[in-house]
């Protein structure tokens, strides 16, 4: 019974932990402009993150080595250093966007200006990073984040034209008034939002934090393979909400209040309250994951002592890195930049940085020196190679498309 509870808890936190500000914003923007005609990208992205997250989790559980240690070991200091620079900056950008997202959600709830909420949110973030146990942190944010299920409920309450939605999703076409380049630009953004590298850094380091061993492999695979696809369903539900409410009116989503409007229309004040709680939990959870990932990536690259399972004084440089990153995020947000805009850029830059992260994971997952008999099977490798081609293509195409479309405008 206790075991069953553990399994359920793992899956539920994986669902709640899947969504972050990147998924919220990108899916809502895409839904309002392209309907469900890009839903297939979420499917492709979710399969990809399942594949690589479970691979990195398996490497961490079997060998005890987290992803960035492996990146450094396989790529050497130059290529890994380039990857570190890119990943660290993107991670910082994402952290900034998440903290901004918390403040925006709290503003919706309180009408207090986000700039007053930002320092509060950042301090709360640091307290959790500093003092809370890893598993408590994971479970609480994941479970509360589950309230985002209201997006799926709202789709039903809005009573959409189902055949129309199905048509958009299953025979995707570029809507009139949108160019092909913009369509593909947003395809890459959605792909980047689903496959953000920090999830893999966090997931593999989390496996080390929670001291997974080969015995935990089945549970971790189940969490990922069940939890993430449900997270993907919620992503599509967010896009569907925006598609139902905004697409016919020709309104493009550009603020958090617009993202939650369909839920309020469908379920009234109560649903609105629930969705705000969900967004605060999801962005707070993701802000924790990105803060920790900034510490994980740098510490693992440099070989420093790291981990929340240690006292802060025994991972001093790791904790200092996170403090500095949180302060930088606060500083950037205090200049009144729009967190939604930051989010839109961070997901595209994520897509650009993907290959340098996923290639070393794939190689080490095949190395018997690390993995013994737990090396990748043929099916996993075949699928991973297909994804490597997709990842490289998206990465190469992202910048030209960004320039050609003026970042999707």
């Amino acid at each position, binding site marked *: 019974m206790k075991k069953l509870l553990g399994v359920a808890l793992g899956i539920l936190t994986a669902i709640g932990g899947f969504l972050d500000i990147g998924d919220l914003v990108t899916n809502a923007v895409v839904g309002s402009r392209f309907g469900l005609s890009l839903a297939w990208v979420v499917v492709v992205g979710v399969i990809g993150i399942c594949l690589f997250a479970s691979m990195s989790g398996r490497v961490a559980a079997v060998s005890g080595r987290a992803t960035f240690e492996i990146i450094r*070991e396989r790529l*050497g200091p*130059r290529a890994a250093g380039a990857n570190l620079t890119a990943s660290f900056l993107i991670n910082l950008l994402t952290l900034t966007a998440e903290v901004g997202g918390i403040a925006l959600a709290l503003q919706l709830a309180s009408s207090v200006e986000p700039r007053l909420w930002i320092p509060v949110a950042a301090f709360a973030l640091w307290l959790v990073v500093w003092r809370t*146990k890893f598993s408590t942190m994971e479970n609480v944010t994941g479970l509360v984040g589950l309230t985002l299920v209201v997006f799926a409920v709202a789709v039903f309450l809005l009573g959409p034209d189902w055949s129309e939605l199905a048509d958009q999703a299953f025979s995707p076409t570029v809507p009139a008034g949108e160019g092909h380049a913009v369509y593909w630009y947003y395809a890459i953004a959605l792909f980047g939002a689903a496959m953000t590298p920090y999830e893999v850094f966090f997931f593999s380091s989390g496996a080390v934090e929670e001291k997974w061993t080969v015995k935990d492999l089945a549970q971790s695979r189940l969490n990922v393979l069940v939890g993430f696809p449900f997270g993907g369903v919620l992503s599509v539900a967010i896009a569907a909400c925006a598609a139902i409410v905004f697409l016919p009116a020709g309104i493009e989503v550009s603020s958090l209040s617009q993202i939650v409007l369909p839920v309020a229309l469908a379920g009234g004040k109560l649903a609105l309250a629930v969705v705000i709680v969900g967004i605060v939990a999801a962005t707070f959870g993701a802000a924790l994951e990105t803060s920790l990932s900034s510490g994980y990536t740098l510490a693992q690259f440099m070989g*420093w*002592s790291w981990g929340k*399972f240690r006292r*802060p004084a025994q991972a001093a440089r790791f904790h*200092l890195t996170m403090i500095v990153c949180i302060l930088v995020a606060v500083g950037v947000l205090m200049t009144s930049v729009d967190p939604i805009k930051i989010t839109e850029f961070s997901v595209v830059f994520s897509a650009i940085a993907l290959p340098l992260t996923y290639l070393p994971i794939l190689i080490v997952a095949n190395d018997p020196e690390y993995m013994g008999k737990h090396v990748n099977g043929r099916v996993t490798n075949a699928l991973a190679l297909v994804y490597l081609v997709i990842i490289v293509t998206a990465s190469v195409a992202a910048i030209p498309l960004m320039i050609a479309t003026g970042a999707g405008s």
Partner: protein
Amino acid sequence: MSLPPDEHPPGLVLDARLHLLDRQVLDVDGVPVCTVDDLEVHGVDGSDLPDGSQTAVVTSLLSGAVLATRVFGGRPPSSRLHRIRWTHVADVGTTVALGVHGDSLDVTWTERWIRDRVIGRLPGGRHDPG
């Protein structure tokens, strides 16, 4: 064009880049110390620039400033190298294990400095999380 195989040396064979460089170094308690950023080599007669006329052996693992020069080129002066003597290495696998405490080593001075000046002074910094 197949090349003749090398004679089979009796000891464990390690390719420096493949098996040693950039690997994590753990101390006797399994705490991360640093990465292997480079290796220092001496001739058995102690010469600093051996050639093939004499046996050469690895004497120290290097970490710290030497990482920057591996990325950007150049070479730090010998006095600036942070060494871990090979004597302290207890085992080589997917990580390099030392037989000593990390705190006793030169390479961890930044960790100790930040612990003593910053992190250890913040409330709760020296307590277990939870």
